[in-house]
């Protein structure tokens, strides 16, 4: 059965303190790994799609990487506005299977 596990569940950082979020997955035949950002009371906002091991994508202070078993979301010099829950998901037969998310808080 396809599974997605994210760690840590919650992470508090000081502004400017870089770190990484982890997404471990088990899926038969990866058809895409997705990262979303979710603010309280809102729907998930699409960030990245990765398809093959070794692929990397960047957007502002965020960089997503992919291996055969996990994906990392690296956050460089974060700002308070980066505070949100970050969700990863894998595509399984056209539907997304999500992890439980990492709740990130950036303190000024």
């Amino acid at each position, binding site marked *: 059965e396809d599974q*997605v596990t994210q760690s840590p569940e919650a992470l508090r950082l000081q502004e400017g303190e870089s770190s990484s979020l982890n997404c471990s997955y088990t899926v038969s035949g990866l*058809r*895409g790994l*997705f990262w*979303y950002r979710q603010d309280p*009371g*809102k*729907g*998930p*906002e*699409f960030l990245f*799609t990765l*398809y093959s091991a070794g692929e990397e994508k960047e957007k502002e202070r965020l960089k997503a990487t992919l291996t055969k078993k996990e994906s990392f979301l690296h956050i460089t010099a974060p700002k308070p506005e980066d505070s949100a829950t970050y*969700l990863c*998901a894998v*595509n399984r*037969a*056209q*539907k*997304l*299977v*999500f*992890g*439980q*998310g990492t709740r990130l808080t950036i303190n000024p």
Partner: protein
Amino acid sequence: GAGVSQTPSNKVTEKGKYVELRCDPISGHTALYWYRQSLGQGPEFLIYFQGTGAADDSGLPNDRFFAVRPEGSVSTLKIQRTERGDSAVYLCASSKGAGGSYEQYFGPGTRLTVT
């Protein structure tokens, strides 16, 4: 352009009542998905449509849940005889097509509370 919209944003209902949740996808998107999100959890798949037909309804928890998309655009999720365990945020998403190469774009959700 306009994103996915959902109405109502909040719905409070009594146990045993019937509710309808509406989703307006992004114009031109042929695939539409419904997910349910409980507090502190990631969204869980319920059903998806490709055009007017339900291509996969394997995530619907039981026969009290039903969804339609009669004209291939707007979709309605219907819940009969609501139970307190149905309380959650119901999210709708749409994509240009079905498949891993198409990103799913989510609406703001409908928060359903069953009292």
